[in-house]
């Protein structure tokens, strides 16, 4: 059961914003510092096909959807 979604959401947002503010202020990542960031596993969606399979599974078994992208099609499974 959801206890306090608003509080958790605010906490997650604060975490991200704090990270953004702190990280950006502390470090200016130059293009030649991107050796790690250029790796495939450092993408937010490193395996789009697998993510699409997962989205399909969870869409058919749960009441929620969305979050990452706008592509993909409908399904009669839910």
């Amino acid at each position, binding site marked *: 059961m959801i206890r306090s979604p608003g509080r958790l*959401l605010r906490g997650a947002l604060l975490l*991200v914003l704090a990270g953004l503010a702190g990280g950006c202020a502390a470090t*200016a*990542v130059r293009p030649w510092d991107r050796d790690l960031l250029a790796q495939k596993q450092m993408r937010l969606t490193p395996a789009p096909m*697998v993510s699409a399979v997962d989205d399909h599974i969870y869409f058919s078994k749960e009441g929620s959807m*969305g*979050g990452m992208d706008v592509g993909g099609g409908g*399904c009669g499974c839910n």
Partner: protein
Amino acid sequence: MQLTPAGRSSSLRARLGAAACLLLAAGMPAIAQAESGATTQIDATALLYGERSRTNVAEPTARITRRFADGQSLSAQFGFDVITGASPSGAAPSGTIHTTTSASGTVTTSPAGQVPLNSFKDSRYAADLEWQKPFLRSFLSTIGGHVSREKDYQSLGANGKLSVDLLQRRTTLTAGGGVNRDRVFPVGGIPVGLSDGSLPAMSSALPKDVSTLMVGLSQVVTRRWLVGLNATRTFERGYLSEPYKVLSVLDGTTGLPAGQRTEKRPSTRERRSLLASSVYHLTDDVLSLSYRHYRDDWQVRSQTFDARYRRELGSERYLEPHLRYYSQSAASFYRSSLVDGAPLPEFATADYRLGALSSVTFGATCGFRLPGRPGEWTVRAEYIRQFGEGHPDTAVGIQRQFDLFPSVDIGSLLIGYSIEF
């Protein structure tokens, strides 16, 4: 031109910096590769999915991507699902053997005291096309289309996105939208909502339209840390009910079934979700975390936590454990059954997927390359368990003896192969 030592050093540094910018600021390996010519990537996955005593799915998918020398790419994906088994009909358990006859005439027998199931068999074909084009050095446009067809459902969709890189490519903003023009044509026609089955089908087919808007931000925080924030808003309109689902009408005292009615959901739905993601590169390994908050105007609220830890094993092998937790509240019109003699509500469903439930997923992916062979393999095994309130306070009479939400146990095996040439 003769340069002073100081000037040569400065010029050399500037040129090296510019060269590094050209090579690395492009960011995407695909673009870097495209400088030397076009490449082709082929990805294939095969999913085997099984629910204990319920649904089984086999789903092979293939995708081919052609990346051109100017940075454009064109990809096509084809998928095919075979789905067999049974899913809960929505009816409540009873003290006797329950027999369900589907619209196609399939008869399913459920043991006494267990949630009645509907047997089904279906297949689904899907094709997707996507075209990406970079322009003005910092922009990337994406256009896509989708078509899929199954026995009782058809989906046609189009989508587009525009991304722009800012602040020396440390920040990427994305905005996009998509529309689906779907059509529902169940076997036996579309039933009248909340009818007892005595009325003829109201139509043979009805539309379902879906529009999605998305805005996203990704930010390089440090050399090892990338974060993202995505918001989507989805509008659905049309036939949103499940044509094969029913609700039991129970005697208010004994809890014994007195009949059943079809379900009925609103004809519109507005969904909103917010996804926060983080990817952090440790010494060798990568930790990915995400949190999604979701809500809609059917009063479903959900939260999803997802964690992956990619452990590098050397020799281009890795192991990635995965943990996911999901929790949702019930839709405002969800009820496990109706009471005989009570006024009918405007909307009602007993589909457990719109009830309060939680899911836990754990599994692991293993990635490797075979010695002397091109391409990368991945093998993933996962276990999902869904659970909810099996003995709610609202249960009456004999229903208190039954588990109204038996846990759903799901196992899946996903095998993937990717090669670029």
